[in-house]
């Protein structure tokens, strides 16, 4: 470890020693339409063969010498811009790229490998919009699963599994703020509104040192800043939800972007709840029930630029899910049940940048995130009976009882954090960028405050109640990092990073070094690019799954909450090869990931209250490993575009006290996972999209025998090795047809028809054992059998959206 750190320091110092006098080309690259800064645009000086990328604010810095420059600026989906000029001094360039005609994209794509982008995988928004989805709502999470190494959790789940990691090992960031929960509508709809998103970056290896806190992936989502030119908007009407977005300038220096979305699944039941529960409306003796679910969210972002060198952004997101149900029977107020479930997600962040010097770019941020669940169910049962006490009991002779019972269960859990950070990007000499930064996060955990109160009325009132105060926990996470991107030669580029992280919870301290290395080598004779990466990641938070309510939910716990609940870590090694064979691109990557100090929560912690003794049901100090080979073939030009991704992988876990200490497959260990996407332009207005998915089924625990009843125990199952069973193969075809028509220069409308699971595949959502009975002629049970039942969701699901944009 010491040697690695020494090597890192030498490389860092050499950067400064090599610094030489020259000029600096600075600039900003933006879209011509709306003047939105473009993140990750490539700036290539073809005369001097130097390359750089724009940062997350669209800015670039290219140290060079005095003389002629021929810059070629490219960005996916935009026509390249050529700039030829004679540079005599430091120069600031404002470059506007025009959106490309898709048929002319061959040349744009040919530049894609001029700058290899480390472990970053970019998901173009056009591709996100082209992926068919449930209910026609464009879904970022589902679009990510078309990438190799990224698998979906379950059908209708807003989680991803990256390279054999679990869903809690992914860090979702929206404009600098961490997102705890990524789904609406029990996970069927993604939290991210596609109309508010400008850019999505996914890292599954070669993690930059500025990111930390999760083992398997980082998803960095950047929201739109808003058009600087004019007010633009879009209305989208769908079957289950509708949305609206608006963006534009506020004066000469500021812009805004806003997007709102709401579902209307409960519109048809408006007013029904009142009717069910209000005395005087419902008839006596009438049984009534009501159920409603809705969600809504809003994104808002405002950007203000004092000048090209100074800018501030404020971003806000609020999302809410509301489920309500009520049943009532009997006379008013006597027997009824009401249930409410409210899920709230809130993020707020502010970011600013300032160019301190021609080759020093500084930025800082503050952020707040909150995820809160609230569940409440109130049941009232009244049975009025008057009876004398049984003779001979110790009860008083005058005892008479009227039984009435009212139970009220409520549960509230939340996770919050406040974070702040600062970073400086230094470009001291050609072909090198150094980033130094610090970040701090303060976590607040209120895992579960629950209250269960039962009130029973007898002759004398009996109050029986149970109250559990919130176990509040706090933790602080600090990170200091340094990254170095350096072009060692024309064909060799390296990214070296080191992150020092510290975590404190309940007076327990953990400090770790997280080295990150990535290197690429451009093979001679255009044979492609080889890349190699090694990265260590630390995760200081552990996810518990809490059930027993309407939906299972994730409850976060910090390392140190128990002495043996120590930080998890992962080392990942990957070697890849990629090549452009016009018009297709091919990439292959081999990876190996070793996970340490894993935690495993047995299912019966579900109540997560003092009686569940959850602290004793956590298995810790486990290890895991996953390895696999990923293929990706892309065609992003021409009338027919598409991709084919295939992953062969294996993922196992091992705990000393589980499965007799033997390794067992991870729940989502999938040997084969493939996706095929195709997009065909039938005409300039009409496009057809297809997505075909194939994957091994989820694993489950296989009972291999049954032990009958005895005086010591009831009948129980004997299980084989953990996760030794597997659901049948999962596959599905989704289709969508998109039509778009221009009404004028800035006004257009269109529609989208989606068909989810087009060939009616009945994929397993879950299975269970059920009892079946066969009756004889007298109506008596003749045969009682246990059978397996399969539940499938969405055998086929059509949907339709219509939109208008201006």
């Amino acid at each position, binding site marked *: 470890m010491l040697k690695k750190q020494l090597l890192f320091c030498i490389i860092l110092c050499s950067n400064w020693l090599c610094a030489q006098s020259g000029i600096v080309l600075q600039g900003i690259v933006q879209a011509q339409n709306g003047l939105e800064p473009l993140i990750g645009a490539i700036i290539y000086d073809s005369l001097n063969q130097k390359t750089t990328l724009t940062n997350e604010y669209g800015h670039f810095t290219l140290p060079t010498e005095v003389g002629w420059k021929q810059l070629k600026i490219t960005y996916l989906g935009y026509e390249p811009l050529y700039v030829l000029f004679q540079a005599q001094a430091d120069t600031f360039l404002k470059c506007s790229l025009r959106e490309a005609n898709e048929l002319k994209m061959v040349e744009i794509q040919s530049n894609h490998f001029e700058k290899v982008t480390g472990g970053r995988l970019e998901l173009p928004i056009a591709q996100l919009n082209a992926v068919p989805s449930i209910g026609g709502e464009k879904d970022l999470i589902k679009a990510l699963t078309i990438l190799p190494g990224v698998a979906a959790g379950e059908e209708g789940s807003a989680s991803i599994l990256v390279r054999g990691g679990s869903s809690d090992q992914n860090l979702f960031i929206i404009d600098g703020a961490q997102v705890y929960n990524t789904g609406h509508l029990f996970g069927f709809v993604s939290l991210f509104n596609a109309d508010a998103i400008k850019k999505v970056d996914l890292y599954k290896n070669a993690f930059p040192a500025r990111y930390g806190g999760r083992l398997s992936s980082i998803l960095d989502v950047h929201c739109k800043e808003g058009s600087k030119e004019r007010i633009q908007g879009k209305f989208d009407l769908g079957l289950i939800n509708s949305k609206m977005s608006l963006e534009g300038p506020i004066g000469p220096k500021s812009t805004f972007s806003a997007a709102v979305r709401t579902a209307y*699944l409960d519109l048809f039941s408006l007013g029904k709840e009142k009717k069910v529960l209000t005395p005087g409306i419902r008839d006596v003796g009438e049984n009534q029930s009501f159920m409603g679910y809705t969600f809504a969210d809003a994104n808002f972002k405002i950007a203000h630029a004092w000048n090209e060198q100074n800018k501030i952004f404020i971003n806000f997101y609020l999302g809410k899910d509301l489920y309500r149900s009520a049943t009532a029977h009997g006379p008013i107020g006597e027997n009824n049940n009401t249930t409410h479930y409210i899920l709230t997600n809130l993020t707020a962040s502010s970011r600013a940048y300032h160019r301190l010097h021609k080759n020093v770019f500084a930025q800082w941020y503050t952020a707040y995130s909150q995820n809160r669940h609230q569940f409440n169910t109130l049941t009232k049962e009244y049975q009025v009976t008057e009876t004398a006490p049984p003779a001979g009991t110790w009860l008083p002779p005058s005892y008479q009882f009227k039984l009435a019972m009212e139970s009220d269960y409520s549960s509230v859990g939340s996770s919050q954090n406040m974070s702040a950070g600062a970073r400086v990007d230094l470009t001291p000499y050609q072909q090198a960028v150094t980033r130094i930064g610090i970040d701090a996060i303060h976590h607040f955990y209120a895992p579960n405050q629950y209250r269960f109160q039962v009130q029973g009325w*007898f002759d004398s009132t009996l109050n029986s109640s149970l109250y559990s105060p919130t176990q509040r926990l706090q933790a602080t996470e600090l990170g200091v990092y340094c990254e170095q991107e350096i072009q060692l030669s024309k064909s060799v580029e390296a990214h070296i990073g080191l992150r020092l992280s510290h975590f404190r919870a309940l007076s327990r301290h953990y400090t770790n070094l997280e080295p990150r290395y990535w290197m690429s080598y451009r093979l001679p004779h255009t044979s492609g690019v080889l890349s190699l990466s090694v990265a260590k990641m630390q995760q200081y938070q552990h996810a518990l799954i809490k059930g027993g309510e309407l939906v299972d939910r994730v409850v976060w716990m910090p390392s140190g909450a128990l002495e043996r609940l120590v930080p998890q870590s992962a080392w990942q090694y990957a070697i890849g090869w990629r090549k452009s064979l016009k018009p297709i691109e091919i990439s292959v990557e081999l990876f190996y990931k070793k996970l340490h100090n894993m935690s495993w929560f047995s299912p019966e912690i579900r109540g997560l209250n003092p009686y569940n003794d959850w602290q004793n049901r956590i298995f810790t100090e486990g290890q895991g490993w996953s390895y696999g080979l990923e293929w990706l073939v892309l065609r992003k030009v021409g009338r027919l575009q598409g991709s084919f991704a295939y992953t062969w992988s294996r993922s196992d876990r091992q705990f000393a006290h589980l499965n007799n200490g033997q390794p067992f497959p991870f729940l989502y260990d999938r040997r084969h996972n493939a996706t095929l996407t195709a997009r065909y332009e039938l005409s300039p207005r009409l496009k057809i999209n297809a997505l075909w998915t194939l994957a091994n089924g989820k694993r489950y*625990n296989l009972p291999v025998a049954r032990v009958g009843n005895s005086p010591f125990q009831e009948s129980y199952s004997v299980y084989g090795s953990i996760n030794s069973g597997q659901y049948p193969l999962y596959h599905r075809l989704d289709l969508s047809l998109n039509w778009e028509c221009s009404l004028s220069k800035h006004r257009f409308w269109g529609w989208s028809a989606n068909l989810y699971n087009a060939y009616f595949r009945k994929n397993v959502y879950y*299975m269970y054992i059920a009892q079946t009975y066969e009756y004889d002629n007298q109506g008596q049970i003749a045969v009682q*059998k246990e059978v397996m039942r399969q539940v499938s969701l969405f055998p086929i*699901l059509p949907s339709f959206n219509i939109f208008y944009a201006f």
Partner: protein
Amino acid sequence: MLFEPMNPFKQIIFGTFCLLTSCQTIETVDFPLPYEGRKGVLTGFLSAEHGLIVHVGATRPPLNGKEDTLKNIQFVFKEGEQKLISPTYQGEKLWQTIGFRPKPAEKYQLTLIADGISSVTSATVQLPQRVELTQVKVLSATDSLVKTLNYRFQDPVEDNFYALQVLQYYQDSLLTESATIYPSAYHLLFDDKNSAGQFVQQNYRVDLAYSKGYKLANRFKIQLFSLNKFAYSFLKSLSDASFVEGEIFIEPVKIFSNMTGGYGCLGTYAVSEMEVRF
């Protein structure tokens, strides 16, 4: 009225909702579950108070397997180096030794032999140290329907495991349906992780409202079972499994077994009991 007149917009929304919700299908499938083959199940407890109590059986396939009884059952019981072989029995039932009293420091092992199964042999077990209840009090008022029992005992320094049973009386008989002379998964199970070697004082609450229709006598019997680790692990896993039994697709709670060649557990216990009136 089930459906009320709705305006056209609500009809569209309602139709959409029906479409979405009706898209769930449930069907019975022939899903093969492998069977590892028939194995013997031997479960029992050994105590100085009650001797050896044991039950034998055999596993069956996970779904709909026929449960048949064992034939030609024979026990081999090892006490130290001495081996005792029982006569051959037929059928499954609860077997209890009469008059046999195991010795405190002695080692015991039990083997089941029967037709159609491999022999099943337990791990070697020893009796645990008996931990005596020192005091039991009723803290609640006489006419209260909720009784709080306060019990105390001195926990020895070694690792200890316990089961607590509170018995109510119906006139002169024990009322509690699950009352057993041996420890059970339905009892309050706990270990001394947080109280090793200390004087333990705990409360146990009994709600008499649920049994108000019975002719209750105003007394309780409290039994504190000291368990060996095998017995505790077995009972605790049975208790834990009751939370998830039937949900076969989540990670299972494996029922503890200290048998080789089959399933079940041979555990040991010692019991201390006190009566209290209110």
